[in-house]
């Protein structure tokens, strides 16, 4: 048997979502990100929130890398004393969602009937209307929030922010 771990996996990169569970402690985020920066791996998105268990925090991390590396770093993160559990999954195994906020000039809402259609079509929500600007919210997959972005762009987007996906496994854990 070929024992070289490098030959066990191919070099294709995929999107992986990691779910990391840790105690809440100053510095733990640095400990986790150091495992990525050590091998010069970019984190595509990162979200932190408290779980259903008080005191336990959940990190959703998106990376694009090989299976060999995602396995290795998952274990290296789980090894950290303050980390309870670290797991990873490919997109087909999880339910994901993200939130995007768009700030556009209010005048285009008033002057341009098109923007109303766009918002309806995308099932987006208006969160705030101000004399100068309007804030729109859209939840969905990245390609959905991106589609709205692309349509709004010609009207002038003042500010845009995306939460990055959060995810939950398809099977009960």
């Amino acid at each position, binding site marked *: 048997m070929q024992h070289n*771990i*490098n030959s*066990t996996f191919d070099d294709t990169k995929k999107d992986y979502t990691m779910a990391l569970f840790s105690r809440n402690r100053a510095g733990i985020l640095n400990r986790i990100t150091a495992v990525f920066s*050590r091998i010069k791996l970019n984190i595509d998105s990162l979200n932190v929130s408290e779980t259903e268990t008080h005191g336990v925090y959940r990190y959703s991390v998106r990376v694009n890398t090989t299976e060999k590396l995602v*396995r290795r770093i998952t274990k290296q993160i789980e*090894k950290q004393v303050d980390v309870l*559990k670290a*797991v990873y999954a490919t997109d087909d*195994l999880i339910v994901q969602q993200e939130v995007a906020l768009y700030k556009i000039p209010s005048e285009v809402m008033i002057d341009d009937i098109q923007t109303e259609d766009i918002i309806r079509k995308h099932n987006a929500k208006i969160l705030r209307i101000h004399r100068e600007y309007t804030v729109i919210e859209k939840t969905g997959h990245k390609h959905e929030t991106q589609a709205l972005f692309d349509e709004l762009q010609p009207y002038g987007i003042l500010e845009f922010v995306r939460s990055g996906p959060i995810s939950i496994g398809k099977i009960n854990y």
Partner: protein
Amino acid sequence: MFKAESNSIKSIINKNWQQIHDEQPADEAVKMLGSEALVRSLMAENVEIMFGYPGGAIMPTYDVLHQFQKEIKHVLVRHEQGAILAAQGYARASGRVGVCIATSGPGATNLITGIADAQIDSTPLVCITGQVHKDLLGTDAFQETDIIDISMPITKWNYKITEAREIPQVMARAFFIAKSGRPGPVLIDITKNAQMDFLEFSYKKCLHFNSYLPEPTPKEQSIKDAADLINAAQKPLVVFGQGVILGEAENEFKAFLEKSGIPAAATIMGLSAINNDHQNHVGMVGMHGNYAPNLLTNQCDLLIAIGMRFDDRVTGTLNTYAQQAKIIHLEIDNSEINKNVRVNVPVLGNVKYTLPQITDRIIEKTYPKWREEFSQLHKQEYDAVIKEDLTPSKQALTMSEVIDMINDLTQNDAIIVTDVGQHQMAACRYAKYSQTRSLITSGGLGTMGFCIPAAMGAKLAKPERTVIGIVGDGGVQMNIQELGTIMQTQIDVKIIILNNEFLGMVRQWQELYFDKRYASTEITSPNYQVLASAYNIASAKVSQREKLKHALQTMLETDGAYLLEVMVGQEDNVFPMISPGDSVSDMRLK
């Protein structure tokens, strides 16, 4: 679904998390200063000695250490790197947690090399650093350095104490985490206000820390699978690492070897876990290890890796490593499983508990024909290398014959502490042991300057044993200031400088791989005898074979520290060798 390996994520989280309520009651609380609480925490952990250097941000703690001199001996070093390497020597020789202490800023950053060394060699340490007052954090205050972030990737755990009341619990956790599971360095940074404020002190030892699972339990099935593979093997080979020593599993390991009859080779970090003359011992694997176990790694049908981590210096190129064999990996750290080498049967857990379960299930065997292959290859190595190393035909002394004579004169009973380079390889190849924890070397990091401070720590841990440092003319000049510590603390270490007037190991690579372009590897030395006498340390220099034995005898018979300089062949090489990128089976004899 996220891939959780066996148990579901939720049950693991709940199980770990609930342990928080599971602590024992503490002693009655007494009001005291944070600095005293820190020192009393050390006493509660039975710390008897620590190595350090004072400075502004840690002065309140030094003030208390002064009051408790009888309870805890503080060794004043000459550089904080000396403190941490001495703490490592202490930990490696004794099996206990080594403790060092430094001030903030430069004091703390001077510890870094030692922390990295302890992390990669799994040495249990608690490092204490002073820090500026909590209100000054983040202001670029005098001697403020963010040592927590700097040390984060090279510590097993670290923590910044900013309130006096945190001290007992955090210190208890520090000692527990440093020593349990796969050991490692823990750094505790403590702000000046936390040392100077009062708290209600009570101490209870930490027995578990929720979120941290030091020792995984092996799967029953993997024990069975391992035993089945062993029972079916025709040509099995054991490669053992420091896991045997760290798990205090020397006896369990011996019992396994003696029942199974399997030949066993050490990694550098595994050396001295069993004595050299043990019938199953077939030498050392790795770049400068022995010919037989390296070549036969690629002949065996079963490789049993015990408490080792398939370092690249052990495996050579992975593409051809033990392809014909099945591999069993006994390992405490799950992140080491399938890291470099894909294994057939992983056995997670402390080898102290997993080995006996396997021993129970295997049949008693011997492998006379297989052992014959080792003997034959060993004879080749003897004829091509060992003979000339130990009984040279050349005039110049060899490093190896010096080590060999030490074996003779100490009846294999010394603790050998090495530096890094050719002399290290000579020591690892030829030094003999009669007890565990007798070879202390910087394996994973290869830290030059390791020898003198680590030898000091080893001697202070084991005053009844002879401690001999083997160091190169390069490495000795890296922590030579510690001769001052040896002088002041009167540490009875014997230091042998194997002087080849080169940074020999680098020169060897230049000779072999860079067409003999000796870029910056010729190094001059001070007059070591004059230097030793400046420190009031006895010394001698020897360059002739006839005088070597007498010089070594004098060194061993002299009370107190001794520095012996031995002039050795300038351009000798360490062989056999696996060239970088080559296969273990391509090991060259010259």
